[in-house]
């Protein structure tokens, strides 16, 4: 408990200091609970998520960093490896390939990378996965873009 708190505090200070280091990621710690974080990540360019801002919720276990944080999308996203309803993310580093040397910041980077490189072979969102696997890139992209517009962009006017 103490170790995880100390480590999270270090990450917190690092985030404060390097606020502008990565303009695509904005990590915020919950005001009252250092084990709850949220992040705003920008959809990577040249992907259907470009222009969207996606909110992630982090729930950090007491054994952190020996155990991975639980992360899910709060913003609706159409992506083969993200559950459409719950926002659950299928990403190896959040499961069995976790390493304690990862940080919340690097997890965000990994999630951005996942957005740019969907892994259609192990889909949580089957519709999205099937579009990609059948080679209907346009279909996938337009669906993903539509949901980006609907859910991840500020309403105009």
């Amino acid at each position, binding site marked *: 408990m103490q*170790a995880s708190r*100390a*480590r999270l505090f*270090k*990450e917190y200070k*690092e985030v404060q200091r390097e606020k502008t280091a990565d303009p695509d990621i904005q990590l915020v710690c919950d005001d009252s609970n250092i084990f709850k974080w949220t992040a705003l990540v920008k959809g990577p360019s040249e992907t259907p998520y470009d222009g969207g801002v996606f909110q992630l919720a982090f729930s950090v276990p007491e*054994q952190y*960093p*020996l*155990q991975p944080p639980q992360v899910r999308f709060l913003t609706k996203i159409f992506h083969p*490896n993200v559950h459409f309803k719950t926002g*659950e993310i*299928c990403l190896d*580093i959040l*499961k*069995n390939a976790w*390493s*304690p*040397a*990862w940080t919340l910041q*690097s997890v965000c980077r990994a999630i951005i990378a996942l957005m740019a490189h969907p892994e259609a*072979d*192990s*889909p*949580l969102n*089957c519709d999205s*996965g*099937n579009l990609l*696997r*059948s080679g209907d890139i346009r279909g996938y992209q337009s669906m993903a873009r539509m949901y980006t517009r609907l859910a991840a962009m500020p309403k105009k006017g």
Partner: protein
Amino acid sequence: MASEDELMMQDATDDGESFDDDFYSGGDVHDDSDDDDVMDYDFIDNDSDDSDTVIAHHRSQSNYSILNEADIHKCQEESITKISTVLSIPRVAAGILLRHYNWSVSKVNDEWFADEGKVRRIVGLLENHVPVPDGEELTCGICFDVFPRKEISGAACGHPFCFTCWQGYISTAITDGPGCLMLRCPDPSCSAAIGLDMIKKLANDDDKKKYDRYFIRSFVEDNRKTKWCPAPGCDYAVDYIVGSGSYDVTCGCSYSFCWNCTEETHRPVDCGTVSKWILKNSAESENMNWILANSKPCPKCKRPIEKNQGCMHITCTPPCKFEFCWLCLGPWTDHGERTGGFYACNRYESAKQDGVFDESEKRREMAKNSLERYTHYYERWATNQSSRQKALSDLQQMQTVHLEKLSDKQCQPESQLKFIIEAWLQIVECRRVLKWTYAYGYYLPEHEHAKRQFFEYLQGEAESGLERLHQCAEKELQGYLDAEGPSKEFNEFRTKLAGLTSVTRNYFENLVRALENGLSDVDGHGAYSRAASSKSLGGGSIKGKGGRGKGTTSRSSSSRNIDDSGHWSCEYCTYANVRSATACQMCQQRR
């Protein structure tokens, strides 16, 4: 080196810690302050020196050997020594390599000499040791605190982490299970393997013990030719020469099991039938229903897996790590673009149409529909099981208590009472065979009438023979035990029991042979089919599968024969009579 090895071995068996201390540094021989230990293990060492004779007393056949923990450790160390010498690499590295290639020395050699670089990459053995970076103070890569250099440690890759974080990292991995044997550097970009040397240096004592345990277990469990004895509390492993015939092995703890499926020995029934039967039995219990409904066995290692989240791409937990599709249970490598790609998993659809897929569904369906049929077989299976247990303890009792008593009462030397032990051994063995024939019978297709009849005939014969033998060994013997003094009928009893033993043995040999041939004689031999049909005509025959067919048995053409010991078998009841008798002592029919 040999003497060192021995000392190490002595230690290894009772004190895992000091064993790896010495072992992996390969150097200093520690003092064996504990004299008792030395005594103990001297004994084992003497054994292992001419190891062929040692364990030989455990083995009846030479296609397997029994290994105790010291033997296992010795084999493991021998493999490591071989690899370390041949490849000129440290013992720790050899251990990591062997673990990765399931302790197959030849596989390690092949792979290594085919492409050393590739093997090193896969396994995580760096060619060059990278030291932890210079500097008075270093930042731990996990807790991000700054430490003096001497409180920081790194694997061969030099990535710096503090002792506390190392300990936490290693401890988490060890708690997660045997996957800790394949531990890598915590740095995500680094794949350097963490070997026993690091564990020894950095883990706490409890974790070290667990790690050693996993290390030993890995040698037995990952190895294709060794398995643990499944008997509860037994620590022996059985090393089996694959492809050398019968799978029946008897462990040093005297438990007999089938090496292939690790269930108790089940000759003449095959492993598939046995596992179906056992699953079926437990399927009736709540637990198994839950497992069936909520989990699927890993297609490779058969451990049940509960899917509680995530995608259909399942990776079994280490060491299996088999990747498969949850829907069709096929290897994941078969999925993707090559199979037409859709996630609906077309393999699943086709398999379901063929009726191949949903085994568990079908099994439950069957259980409902044929519960009665199942109960019939199960009851008989279970009764023979408990009857065998009883016979085993009776045999025990006989050997330890009654034989001596009987010897006194009847004024017979114990050496002349062997026939009683033989009878009991036969009973135990027959109960085992008979038990499994009920599993066999359950799975014998209904529509194969000839086979069914033949099978039930043989089973009935065998069972009635066994019942007579059991009765005689249990009830009649009691009379002689309770007798005041020597009875003059005792010699007749001897003849009778010995005769019944031999007759029963014959019946069971027939039964075993026939089942192992898949009842193929049913069409080939006129005699058999006649026997089978005469049985079925002989009234009330179907209940013969219940086997209480005393006296309804049909006549075998061979019954006139006088066997080697000069007995003649009664045509009616098959009782083995002494040569001089003109009428059967059992049923009074004339010869």
